């Protein structure tokens, strides 16, 4: 009976230690957040992402208008290849996901995106190699 109580108390103690440790681990973050808050920088990361997104749209707008019409087909092929950077999501899913089904989804996505990465860049290269200037 006493033993049982002792075990229970020990278990409780262990849990408490664990909780303290977790709290300690997180506290630097919390401190950082507070400092951040004091400095007036409480901006949701979403806003930063949105800013990058919006600016990238503008960059894309100007860069794409400067693409010569003769290269519009390679442009489509290469944009296709780079949009397969979605492979990073697939890699994370295959590499560290804990549920089997997520790994499965990730694996299929990985195969599809790799088809696109290799296919897209290589076919672009093949096309671009054909564009030649007049021989003088």
């Amino acid at each position, binding site marked *: 009976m006493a033993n049982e109580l002792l075990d229970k108390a020990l278990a409780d103690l262990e849990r408490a230690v664990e909780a303290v440790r977790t709290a300690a681990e997180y506290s630097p973050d919390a401190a950082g957040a507070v400092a951040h808050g004091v400095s007036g920088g409480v901006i949701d990361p*979403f806003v930063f*992402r949105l800013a990058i*997104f919006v600016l*990238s*749209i503008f960059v*894309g*707008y100007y*860069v*794409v208008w*400067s693409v*010569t*019409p*003769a290269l*519009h*087909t*390679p*442009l*489509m092929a290469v*944009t*296709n290849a*780079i*949009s*397969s*950077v*979605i*492979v*990073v*999501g*697939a*890699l*994370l*899913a*295959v*590499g*560290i996901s804990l*549920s089997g089904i*997520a790994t499965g*989804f990730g*694996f299929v*996505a*990985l*195969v*599809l*995106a*790799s*088809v*696109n*990465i*290799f*296919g*897209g*860049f290589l076919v672009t290269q093949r*096309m*671009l190699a*054909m*564009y*030649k*200037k*007049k*021989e003088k």
Partner: protein
Amino acid sequence: MSQNLAAFLYLVSGVLFIMALRGLSHPTTSRRGNMLGMTGMGIAIVTTLILAAPSIGGLLLIVVGLALGGGAGAYIARSIPMTSMPQLVAGFHSLVGLAAVLVAAAALYSPAAFGIGEVGSIHGQALVEMALGVAIGAITFTGSIIAFLKLDGRMSGKPIMLPSRHVINAALLALIVFFIVGLALTESHFNFWAIVLLSLVLGVLIIIPIGGADMPVVVSMLNSYSGWAAAGIGFTLGNLALIITGALVGSSGAILSYIMCKGMNRSFISVILGGFGGETAAVVDDGIQRTVKQGSADDAAFLMANASKVIIVPGYGMAVAQAQHALRELADKLKENGVEVKYAIHPVAGRMPGHMNVLLAEANVPYDEVFELEDINSEFAQADVAYVIGANDVTNPAARDDKSSPIFGMPILDVDKAKTCLFVKRSLGSGYAGIDNTLFYKDGTMMLLGDAKKMTEDIVKAMNH
């Protein structure tokens, strides 16, 4: 690797992607640009691998996946004929769309792997971003498959018009929005798959009513969609490379769609609503007996050999007949005789932006002999011969002169201003838009009836005599 360093490296790969697109401003810089793009992709993949630090089993699975997909991709890239480029690009778009859906599904089932919370406690905002990415990705997937089938000729290019399809599409869209809200509030997997299913259906319904020759717009639009889908997933995962790339690809596709629509003088909305070119518009018979002057390969050879300037106008028919190599031979022959040869490309010639340029490049036509509509249109008046091969509607003077024509206002190549217009065509039928081409009946026009490749080869032969 720290999250900050990883984010920085993702930014680097995003910048490399921007430089890859920037390189395409000129053929000489484009090859280096493509290399930069590949480098960017390499950086993104390696960064993710270090960040994820997969177990041996996981790493093995990744290597197998990369090898499988990469092998298939490399094989396709090497073996595909250049004339099949539009369907290849459409097919590739569908893969990006499906990959986006699957990555989102993986994130939903195993959010911890992506650092976006636990099952049941994913942030509502992340769920909305995910749902948007999934919906657009699924639409891209099925839409691109339909576009692929139409471009590949496995499905009729004719528009398929469902009754009250606008109502159906609007209802589907409303349902998708409803389930997106539901997903954000409950994180229920049922809602997720409902969004996927409805979007897959919507993707099919959006593309089937759009006719074959409007495909340049569709392919560009799906290009754009695949970008927005990637960006949506990028927001969910907080990945800079994905957000930047998604925005780049999204705006690139949107600009190309805009250029294509302008090339046809049609609004984007009217293309998307579809139906154009379906009804075989009855040519109004005004009772006037119109005569067509027909010629032979010998006549054409004589005219061209004695010309001082020839402008070649290729169109989709050239791609179908695979006539680009024969055409280059013809041009070489003419140049030997001291004839000035130029090529004029209409923005919507072919089935995707830049389609004709790639085919001509494949046939070793130097790119500095190939001109866009606005750069060459004024030169037709000084040309002795305009050789129209496989193009039709883009040369129809009715677009310029006849206010009642359905294609009125569409910019055209002024081939009728050349002294003689040689028009290669299979038969005297109307073009895609179902409109009679008034060019056929003009005095300066000579029709060369026959297969584009065969006719061009015959002309070369006739010149050798």
